[in-house]
């Protein structure tokens, strides 16, 4: 029997506010344990939460970008459960009346669009961290307690690990465009839980699902889901059944492990948070925010296709990072030809950046420098092949292309006389190959061109070399 997967994601995105969601503590990452706490986020008796308005603004921004309906009236709720990293033993979250509902994100799978529904977005506070395995006790770090989170829940519209991964990438791009989340899965500022089930193709109702937690890297989104779908498929094929449970992804072994069963699931006893007043008049706020929103990835992509005549894939890749798209457009403004720029950025530039794990914002080359280098190719000062080496040097040294070309003497040999002399030498030094070429072995042209390039250290103008070679034969 053939099975299909049904996947829904629950994403927690840490919002980039300066202070925590219900107190004035800073949100900086990686401080000494319990140095970013106060009586409020430490859950002392008698303290009260005060909502950070920025968090509401960020959630509304996200809601607009994910095509959601923004609720005019929204309310906080308490989610009750006991755990040492949760100082109040309840989490202030949202339940019945989330801030955003019913949106979608469009992703592309093999160039075909697919729409993934967004069920809801709500805001809540994060818990702290328990630190185990230090002797026979555990420690609690509350620096993260009260960090502002958005929970984004998708419809079960995702039908493959690839789609899930594409969705996560697209979501990350949008969140980073909005400046509401840095999208760093490894540091935990973007976290993804997945509800996974499989069913025979054609079946309309859902199979029993499991919830996969702890998918803590983009690399693992696909891996974890593939593993889990495989595990469920084998279970069903062997006549077994899937148990509804929460499973933990273990990246070191590449498998998911049972964490708790449905029977052990918490009754969170949600009820409206009486310490906070409901949020009202959000529609008007949303209208205001909409006006100030800058261009989002999808519209930028479409604009790049029409304005710059770029292929879909180029446009899609360029807009994946807002800073990359800006870099590209700066280069266009500096006089570059869009498609050529796109090729160089997406292959050479990204390759160099990725090697050093750098982002485009840390790029040592300015857009105008690339444009100047491309002009050297255009006016045949250097060849495309040499240009790649020059570009790499530019990246390492920060120097301009013309300076490097001058320093290293990389200017193309366009002097016919000089080149003819070199070609004559090569022909007379390789009599056997010349024989075979003359006997009709055409591919040996390549051999001779190669020899010419070798002799000139790549500086021979390729067209000129070809012409002269043919003339000599």
């Amino acid at each position, binding site marked *: 029997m053939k099975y299909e997967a049904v996947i829904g994601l629950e994403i927690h995105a840490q919002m980039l506010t300066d202070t925590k969601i219900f107190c004035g503590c800073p949100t900086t990452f990686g401080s000494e344990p319990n140095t970013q706490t106060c009586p409020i986020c430490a859950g002392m008796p008698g303290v009260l939460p005060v909502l950070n308005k920025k968090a509401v603004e960020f959630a509304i921004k996200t809601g607009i970008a994910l095509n959601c309906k923004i609720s005019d009236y929204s309310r906080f709720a308490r989610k009750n459960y006991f755990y040492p990293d949760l100082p109040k*033993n309840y989490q202030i979250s949202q339940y019945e009346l989330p801030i955003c509902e019913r949106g979608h994100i469009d992703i592309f799978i093999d160039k075909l669009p697919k729409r993934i529904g967004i069920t809801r977005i709500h805001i809540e506070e994060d818990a702290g961290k328990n630190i185990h395995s230090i002797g026979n006790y555990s420690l609690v770090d509350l620096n993260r307690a009260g960090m502002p989170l958005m929970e984004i829940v998708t419809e079960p519209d995702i039908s493959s690990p690839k789609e899930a991964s594409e969705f996560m990438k697209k979501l990350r791009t949008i969140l980073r465009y909005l400046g509401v989340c840095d999208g760093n899965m490894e540091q935990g500022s973007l976290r993804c839980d997945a509800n996974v089930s499989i069913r025979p193709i054609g079946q309309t109702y859902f199979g029993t699902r499991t919830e996969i937690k702890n998918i803590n890297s983009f690399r693992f989104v696909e891996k974890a889901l593939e593993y889990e779908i495989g595990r469920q498929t084998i279970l069903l094929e062997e006549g077994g059944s899937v148990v509804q449970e929460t499973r933990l992804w273990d990246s070191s072994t590449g498998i998911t492990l049972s964490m708790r069963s449905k029977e052990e699931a918490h009754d969170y006893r949600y009820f409206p948070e009486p310490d906070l007043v409901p949020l009202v008049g959000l529609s008007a706020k949303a209208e205001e925010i909409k006006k100030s929103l800058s261009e989002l990835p999808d519209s930028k992509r479409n604009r790049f296709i029409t304005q710059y005549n770029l292929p879909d894939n180029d446009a899609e890749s360029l807009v994946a990072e807002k800073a990359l798209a800006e870099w590209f457009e700066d280069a266009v403004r500096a006089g570059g030809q869009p498609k050529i720029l796109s090729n160089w950025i997406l292959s050479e530039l990204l390759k160099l950046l990725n090697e050093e794990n750098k982002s485009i914002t840390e790029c040592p080359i300015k857009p105008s420098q690339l444009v100047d280098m491309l002009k050297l190719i255009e006016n045949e000062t250097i060849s495309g092949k040499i240009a790649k080496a020059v570009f790499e040097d530019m990246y390492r040294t920060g120097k301009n292309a013309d300076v490097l070309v001058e320093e290293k003497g990389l200017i193309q040999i366009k002097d016919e006389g000089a080149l003819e002399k070199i070609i004559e030498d090569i022909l007379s030094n390789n009599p056997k190959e010349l024989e075979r070429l003359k006997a009709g072995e055409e591919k040996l042209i390549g051999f001779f061109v190669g020899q010419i390039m070798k002799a000139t250290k790549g500086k021979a103008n390729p067209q000129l070399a070809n012409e002269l070679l043919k003339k000599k034969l």
Partner: protein
Amino acid sequence: MRLNKLTIKELRRLLDKREITPTEILNDIYSQIDRYEDKIKSYITITKDFSYKMAEDAEDHIKNGLMSPLTGIPLAIKDNICTKGILTTCASRILYNFLPPYESTVTEKLLRQKYILVGKTNLDEFAMGSSTENSFFHTTKNPWNMQRVPGGSSGGSAAAVAADECIAALGSDTGGSIRQPASFCGVVGLKPTYGLVSRFGLIAFASSLDQIGPITKDVTDSAMMLNVIAGYDPLDSTSVPIDVPDYVSAIGRDIKGLKIGIPQEFFIEGLDIEVSNTVKEAINKLESIGAIPVDISLPHTAYAVATYYIVATSEASSNLSRYDGVKYGFRASGKDLLEMYMNSRAQGFGDEVKRRIMLGTYALSSGYYDAYYKKAQQIRTLIMQDFKMAFEKVDAIITPTSPTPAFEIGEKTTDPLQMYLSDIFTISVNLAGVPAISIPCGFTQDNLPIGLQIIGRNFDEETIFRVAYAYEQSMDFYKRRAI
């Protein structure tokens, strides 16, 4: 003249004329405490050394002409209101050693006025109870009759004021916890409109009902205290940003033509005959000085107690989750985390608190939420509407504060339901959010005080004070002292 017997207003006059000093007031307060506190047990913590330091500080301010209405006035604070660096226990074992690293907004406001803290007063554990018998530390006695309870949960504050062990006090009122003990102890207790006084630093029992208010010897002092503690607080999202009037100036205006509503649902079976007669006499008195009594109905009153015990316990079950032995307060040992949690809470909380945590946990549980919590919220809305409609016809509502005078110690401890019913007249006020005051309106044949409750519109404490003062001045009950 014993200075501890005077009111804030009287002391203010003497202090400002430099006829007395704050230290002299404090001397009289502490000699009273030395004489009676062993018997009455109003306080959990007495801050004597600190009090005298504060008195000196206040004296300096007065010398420099920097006095505010409460400068140099010795006050008692209910022990569920956080005072920085001073033991704040909520009368619970689970917070037996808790030193708050922050000051509540109300005491911060008092500090700015250079008040004098006498000590932290006893209460029913986490303000859950109507007699202070649920305190982990001890039961407070009613200064009018040591065999009787002072009421609760602010029984320590009410008893301290009645026994002249302080000049005035702060309490908190979730279902009558200021008004009922004020009524039992023959003093004045005000539950302000929900949102008028900041809850920051008040250790929560039921967040949507809790409100801090003054317990004083007379109505004028109540207005003076409210002047200081009322007002919007950015630290409390449920506090309301309104302009706070000068409540003292509302006092003294006559009540001619003012309509006072008499709700039929409050004069029912179970209402003590002496209480009933006394309150009716008080209504006649109000009529004789110009008020117009109007019969009204608050039709959903019968559901108030049931509604309250769902809303309040649900919120409490969540509010009290944080006391788990992990971070502060009492911790019992256990072989693992779960056992440590369970032992700490089992040994840290008293029976009544556990009972309410269980009730609330049950009411919020999945499958029961709609039948209990949600329904209770719907009835709460109906109760609010009852008051809204009533206040279209009248300016204030008059009822007894409690169905009985102070009962005997131990009389109701075995029957929680009987105990819950002692708040039957005060609870709907908290559910509706409206303000109400309890003032003395007479005594039983056994010389036990009886309280009159005056309920007002939202944020209309002025009318309450106006009626209360007019009545108070027409009688002389407020002049009678327990000791």
